[in-house]
């Protein structure tokens, strides 16, 4: 059984005990433990079930590469699934539960899949669930979704907050092992601004566990010296618990800082996403130990050799009294020595190599440890935990020569440099025969905008697996200057520093293992992919490693194949009779480790999920109970319901009141763009289909804007302010877009025209005063002459009303007598209040956007976005009168001359009156005879605006109809979403006050 040792534990504080729970069981650990260390200290070796076969699984690793030991952490609003116990720091009251088991971790019925494993081979899902087709959606997928999946998704909102922050530096070093620390110091010595990121809470990497001396000093002394040296420097920032997880173009790096994971609820943000712009990136990300593929290598108690010594040295946790070490390289001997030093038994070291003569094997021999060379594991014995291993010859087929009883197996299949960050932006790899691993090719780095190397790799990540080489490698690197990395390389492009470590390839143990053993050799623990699965995929014709990955799901779990990828592609290469470099790796994509969604969302949640635009009167509308609707990012009152009123009733009341008394509309969102300059008139003549240059000062003109293709893009009223100044009103949603459109033409095409624009949309609050009593209200407010004579229709005037500085536009979008009054936004709320107050005696009521829509539809006015959808030209809408025939050119003119757009055969705007007075459902089409090639009913038109008119007490609609204007009086049929049809008579688009008498008083 695994337990806590009486002495030692570099990272734990025995004076600070911590209580935590796993599946409801209460355990004790120490401050400084990871959750994995705490579980092992309490003999909780079984921590989860595998994804597909529900096999019992234990802790394998001691870092972010852990595939098995994932838990649901916390509960309620702080529940987080798939948390790696190996990187989760223990804290008082931590609650965790295992994942992927039913009904319990110990007794899992899904394990039956284990016995049916021969029926769940690679590509099982693809092969099995493809027929019959409908079964996928209704039967297979729901079942798979229930049985698969790892942790539980939280169902409540996240109690924590997250933030993001920007950082900048000359040199960003990722990884604070010996190589990263030396690189940081070198860059700092050269006066560079350096940021050093370390995913763990402490610095030093593997050195404190694996080394005794660094640069001639005891490792702990060396570490504390360099730590305090760096901490004292102004130009160095060290961030621990921060994982640099993605490298992007132009030296952009994302890093996830776990600020309060280990202190939940202390008020600090849980994580911070650092968005770092670095002049140069140095990755010192180390290497990850590889498992060996032998039968039963997934049984709890089988661990990476490096993890075993981490638990012994860092946390004083013993994986068991007797640990068998199995390896193909010298580093695992350190584990044997560490176990020995802790007073534990190592019954044997099984070394797959024929000879083991290095310093470490010799030290192990001297310590009296039995070393069996040329041997491997035929199979691991045990179910929910290891009880022993069967030893065989590595060269053979697995005939058992000896059985050794043990509680744990420490395995090492060599080391894979962590090349992810190097590769994210295109850094290339070479296969290194000496250490049997892919290492970065320094001659093919990811490049910066100027062609220089963006990333440099130092330390074990560069394939340097021994400390002298690591130290020498940093010294010869470019980290102390900003010179191009190429310049310090040999002409043949090889690295100047070589590692003394040799790791021969051992991909299967024993090398001639029959299918019975290969069936139990796990490559990908989390996704349950075995050696036999990859071999089957190869037999079935899979050659590309990318295809094989997706077919077998190798490396597709939350650990992204940190342990399994190299072993998997080695098996694939072997099965294909090909070489590993020819098979290549799958693509390394960010993030290196999973990043919780909350971190990516940052502050964008709740009230500040996105910016809401508010008019100066917004608060007043809220107080009067307005029901808002989104218009772009604006919130506009849709209607102002009174107590007991439905929204529909409110809208109808607002329409009728405006038509009979007085309505007030907050029109502040209307776009307002000033266009000024000697060429402004000419510019507007190009932008609008009509002529704006001839507009007299003081007058207003309605205009249409098209894109180059001729399609209608925006509309609005233009006012001539003075000799060389115009004010263009745009739609509420169109202001920013049209302003950008203007600047685009001025900056890129007509850069020699003397025109300046300014978007003054938000400078003014605008109130539409609409209805028969509109003029009376303005007269009550007083201050300027707004009579028919002084201010006729389509003119504007500046002055004051009730003491407010105003510009009054006599324009109408409702068919009523109407003024739109612009006041500086800082006076908007006060002016609105003054209008409401003075309007009381005149029957004034505020109205919202829906009433506005109905009134404009009653008058046959088009609405951008209703009558237009990017495929409609002004001629389709009967707006030929607003298109100049005299102008030589305007944006869209040529487009509109194209045959298809100028054809008389187009769908054109008409009005529709239903025969039964009902309202045509939104989205309805006018049906035609016959069906199209898809068997769908032919159509000849569609509705674009449809409302119940409270004024006319019937349904009214506008829509596009094939050759519509020529078909007045004809009865057509609309389909409806619910089935059935609605008959309607084609009519004029103007339903109310056809002669415009009401607005012209």
């Amino acid at each position: 059984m695994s337990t806590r040792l009486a002495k030692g534990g570099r990272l734990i504080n025995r004076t600070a005990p911590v209580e935590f729970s796993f599946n409801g069981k209460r355990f004790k650990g120490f401050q400084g433990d990871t959750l994995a260390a705490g579980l092992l200290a309490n003999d909780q070796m079984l921590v989860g079930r595998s994804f597909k076969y529900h096999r019992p699984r234990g802790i394998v690793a001691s870092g972010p590469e852990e595939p098995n030991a994932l838990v649901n952490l916390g509960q309620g609003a702080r529940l987080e699934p798939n948390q790696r116990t190996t990187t989760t720091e223990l804290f008082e009251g931590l609650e965790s539960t295992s994942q992927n088991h039913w009904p319990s971790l110990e007794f899992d019925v899904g394990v039956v899949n284990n016995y049916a494993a021969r029926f769940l081979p690679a590509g099982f899902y693809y092969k099995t669930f493809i027929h019959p087709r409908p079964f996928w959606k209704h039967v297979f997928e729901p079942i798979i979704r229930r049985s698969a999946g790892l942790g539980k998704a939280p169902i409540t909102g996240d109690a924590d907050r997250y933030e993001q922050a920007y950082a900048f530096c000359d040199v960003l070093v990722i990884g604070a092992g010996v190589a990263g620390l030396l690189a940081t110091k070198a860059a700092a010595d050269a006066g560079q601004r350096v940021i050093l990121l370390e995913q763990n809470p402490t610095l030093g990497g593997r050195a404190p566990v694996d080394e005794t001396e660094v640069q001639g000093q005891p490792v702990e002394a060396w570490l504390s010296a360099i730590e305090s040296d760096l901490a004292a420097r102004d130009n160095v920032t060290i961030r621990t618990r921060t994982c640099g997880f993605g490298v992007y173009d132009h030296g952009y790096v994302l890093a996830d800082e776990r600020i309060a994971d280990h202190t939940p609820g202390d008020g600090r943000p849980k994580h911070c996403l650092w968005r770092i712009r670095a002049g140069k990136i140095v990755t010192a990300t180390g290497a990850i130990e590889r498992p060996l593929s032998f039968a039963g290598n997934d049984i709890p108690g089988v661990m990476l050799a490096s993890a075993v010594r981490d638990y012994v040295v860092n946390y004083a946790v013993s994986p068991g009294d007797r640990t068998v070490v199995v390896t193909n390289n010298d580093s695992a001997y350190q584990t044997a020595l560490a176990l020995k030093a802790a007073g534990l038994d190592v019954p044997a070291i099984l070394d797959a190599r024929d000879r083991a003569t290095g310093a470490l094997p010799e030290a192990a021999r001297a310590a009296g440890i039995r070393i069996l060379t040329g041997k491997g594991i035929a199979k691991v014995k045990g179910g929910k935990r290891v009880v022993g291993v069967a030893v065989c010859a590595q060269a053979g087929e697995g005939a058992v020569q000896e059985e050794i009883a043990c509680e744990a197996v420490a395995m090492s299949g060599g080391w894979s440099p962590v090349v992810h960050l190097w590769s994210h932006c295109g850094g290339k790899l070479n296969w290194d025969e000496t250490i049997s691993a892919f290492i970065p090719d320094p001659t093919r780095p990811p490049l910066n905008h100027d062609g220089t190397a963006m990333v440099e790799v130092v330390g074990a990540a560069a394939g340097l697996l021994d400390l002298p080489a690591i130290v020498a490698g940093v010294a010869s690197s470019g980290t102390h200057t900003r010179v191009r990395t190429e310049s310090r390389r040999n002409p043949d492009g090889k690295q100047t520093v070589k590692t003394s470590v040799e790791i021969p390839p051992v991909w299967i143990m024993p090398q001639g293992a029959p299918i019975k053993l290969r069936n139990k050799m796990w490559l990908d623990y989390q996704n349950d992919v075995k050696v036999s699965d990859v071999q089957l995929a190869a037999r079935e014709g899979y050659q590309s490693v990318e295809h094989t990955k997706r077919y077998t799901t190798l490396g597709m779990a939350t650990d992204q194949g940190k342990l399994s990828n190299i072993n998997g592609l080695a098996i694939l290469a072997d099965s294909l009779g090909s070489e590993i470099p020819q098979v290549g790796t799958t693509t390394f994509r960010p993030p290196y480790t999973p990043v919780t969604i909350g971190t990516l969302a940052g502050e964008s949640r709740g009230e500040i999920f996105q910016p809401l635009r508010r008019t100066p009167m917004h608060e007043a509308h809220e107080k009067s109970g307005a029901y808002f609707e989104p218009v772009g990012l604006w919130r506009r009152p849709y209607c102002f319901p009174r107590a007991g009123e439905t929204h529909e009733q409110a809208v109808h009341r607002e329409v009728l009141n405006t038509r009979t008394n007085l309505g007030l509309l907050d029109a502040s969102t209307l776009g307002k763009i000033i266009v000024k300059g000697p060429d402004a008139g000419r510019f507007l003549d190009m932008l609008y289909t009509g002529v704006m240059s001839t507009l007299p000062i003081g007058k207003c003109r309605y205009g249409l804007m098209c894109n180059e293709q001729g399609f209608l893009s925006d509309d609005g009223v233009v006012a001539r302010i003075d000799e060389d100044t115009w004010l263009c009103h745009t739609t509420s949603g169109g202001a920013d877009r049209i302003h950008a459109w203007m600047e685009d033409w001025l900056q890129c095409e007509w850069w020699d025209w003397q025109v300046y624009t300014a978007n003054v949309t938000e400078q003014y609050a605008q109130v539409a005063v609409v209805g028969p009593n509109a003029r009376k209200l303005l007269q009550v407010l007083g201050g300027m002459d707004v009579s028919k004579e002084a201010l006729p229709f389509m003119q504007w005037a500046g002055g004051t009303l009730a003491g407010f500085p105003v510009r009054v536009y006599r324009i109408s979008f409702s068919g009523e007598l109407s003024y739109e009054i612009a006041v500086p936004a800082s006076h908007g709320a006060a002016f609105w209040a003054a209008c409401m107050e003075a309007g009381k005696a005149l029957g004034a009521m505020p109205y919202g956007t829906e009433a506005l829509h109905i009134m404009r539809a009653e008058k046959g006015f088009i609405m951008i976005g209703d009558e237009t959808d990017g495929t409609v030209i002004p001629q389709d809408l009967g707006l030929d009168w607003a298109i100049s025939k005299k102008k030589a050119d305007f944006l869209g003119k040529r487009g509109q001359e194209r045959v298809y757009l100028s054809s008389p055969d187009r769908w054109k705007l008409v009005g529709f009156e239903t025969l039964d007075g009902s309202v045509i459902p939104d989205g309805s089409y006018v049906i035609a005879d016959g069906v199209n090639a898809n068997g769908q009913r032919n159509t000849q038109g569609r509705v674009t605006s449809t409302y119940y008119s409270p004024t006319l007490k019937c349904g009214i609609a506008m829509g596009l109809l094939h050759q519509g204007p020529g078909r007045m009086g004809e009865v057509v049929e609309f389909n409806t979403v619910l089935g059935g049809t609605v008959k309607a008579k084609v009519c004029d688009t103007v339903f109310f006050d056809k002669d415009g008498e009401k607005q012209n008083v």
Partner: protein
Amino acid sequence: MSDPVSALNGASFQGFAAIREIGPLGMITLRAKGLKSLDKAIKAAVGTKVPAQRRIEVNSDRACAWMSPDEYLLVMPYTEVATALSSLAKPLSGQHYLAVDVSDARAVFRIEGDRAAEVLGKLAPVDFATLQPGEIRRSRAAQIAAAFWAQDGGFTLVCFRSVARYAFDLLSNAAR
């Protein structure tokens, strides 16, 4: 006529830095390029020289900021906009330029305290360690456009009026 009211009526928040909405503040967008008397006009309006690229020239409660190769932002007390506009008009008359009052289109915030830069560093992709005194950044604060500069031991931030509430909530959240 009522007194002018800024978007949030002077809202404030105290976190590890202080956030205050100030204003209303007078502001003029001046668009002009390569005009002979531009320096004279800016001097007359706000008493500063023409700012160089990415610079802001501050003259107590007035300032002139470079916004683009042909755009400047003039800052002054709210009540002095009309005077400033006519001060610009005289030297620039007959030349092609655009000067327009945008005081009401903006919301202005002060971020103050030793750690004020930390607040903005969470919202804007700006290297505050290299932001020189007298430098202005036209950048963004999370999802909205914003311009800011260091002044009087803190920062002044300008954004559009309609998003003042978002900006305030954002700044306050970042100062928690």
